[in-house]
């Protein structure tokens, strides 16, 4: 069940909505490249599992990474849909 839905543009917006990113991962699942930029360091990794009692369960594997260019990013793998997203405000 996807957790991110395409909704029509509304005047009310959520803050820190996840944004789809292209991630290439190592075999252990940690990110190797984010939007074609090399990951220099994985600072932290954690999981968020929530709403497992609903029709739209959430299961995310978050990674706090530093890219080769020095930028900082937080990306997660949505394990329900198998897609990667980046998110601010984490």
């Amino acid at each position: 069940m996807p957790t991110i839905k395409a909704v029509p543009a509304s005047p009310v917006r959520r803050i820190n909505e996840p944004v789809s990113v292209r991630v290439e991962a190592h075999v252990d699942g940690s990110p190797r490249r984010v939007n074609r930029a090399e990951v220099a360091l994985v600072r932290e990794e954690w999981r968020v599992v929530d709403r497992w009692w609903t029709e739209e369960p959430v299961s995310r594997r978050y990674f706090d990474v530093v890219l080769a260019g020095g930028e900082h990013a937080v990306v997660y793998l949505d394990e329900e849909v198998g897609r990667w997203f980046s998110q601010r405000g984490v």
Partner: protein
Amino acid sequence: MIACLVIPGFELRAALRERPRLQLEPAALAPEPGAEALVGSVTGAAEAAGVQPGMRLGEALAMCPSLQLVDPDPAAAEQAWEEIVRRLEDAGFAVDSAGPGSAYFETRGVERLYGGLEPALKRALKAAGAGWDARVGAASRRFAALAAANVARSGQALVVSDERTREFLAPLPVSLLPMDARRREELEELGVKRLGELAGLPGGAVAERLGPDGRRAWSLARGGSKRRVRGRRPAAELFETLEFPEAVGNELTLRRSLGVLLDRLLARPERSGRALRKVALAGRLVGGGSWRRTLTLRDATADPARLRTALAPKLNDLPAPIVMLRLEALVLAESVGNQLELVRPEGDELRAHLSEGLRQVRAGTGSGSVCTVVEVAPWSRLPEQRALLVPRDD
């Protein structure tokens, strides 16, 4: 219906008004001083010789050695466009100008006046004036109207009904989409060359591959939103000009001239004591062409010292000496003055200052740009569930 009036290559046409002979020869708008060396709009003869707008200057000259470069004249273009917009407004259209050469307006209010949609569009074409090769498109959505105007021939009014919008847009090239050139190239590399091909893709996949710009383009390819057109507030007709007997490039003289223009403009009785909110500084360059900068003031003011401080640094951007300097008051404030304060504002007064600040931001960036953060579930483990952005247009 939303109508869109388009004049292709408007800046070049405006620059060539003084030299109409060049309109029939291969000519192109030269790059602005300091900008990337790409040619702007081109004449029909240049296009026939293989020169395309946006081509590198060297490539364009290699393609057509007889190509004549025309210096951009933004002040003349701005003035000519303002005249056209005013003629449209005089004909009863509430115009939303999208920049020189392109304007939107609603036809609903004037259809009965002119006896239907098509006569109203014909009236708009007539108001634009002969010699500009204006064309107009009408549809129930903005982008479809723009696309129709781009497809229409000179002097033609093309109407696209709502149910035929997708069908009409489908065979048109993706170059009509207002998007970054790199993104457009990326689309074409993926084999997406027509709007219909883009519209047929799943929205989520487009957003994932091309980001928010791609998603917006996808939405436009499907017709875009039905957002209403809001007519602009007509600009104030208040300006002062100083002609120099010989070209002036000296900073001190320019600053003194600006001071003189400011004093003259502020002394004009038409101002009726109102402060200036938006001003423009324009100059005619010695070698031909012109230069223009606009400035929106954070606080509307009629204080010559503050205006001078805000405007003088713009003179440093002048690319060449000038023979004429012009100062225009584009927007005047509604109030006639501010009461000075002896004590720091608080309570209602502070809130009034804050709402005035927000009103200015909205005026500069459009409706929906000022929002309040409303916390809905600050405890949530999902960051996107914690707060909402709610627009404040009050």
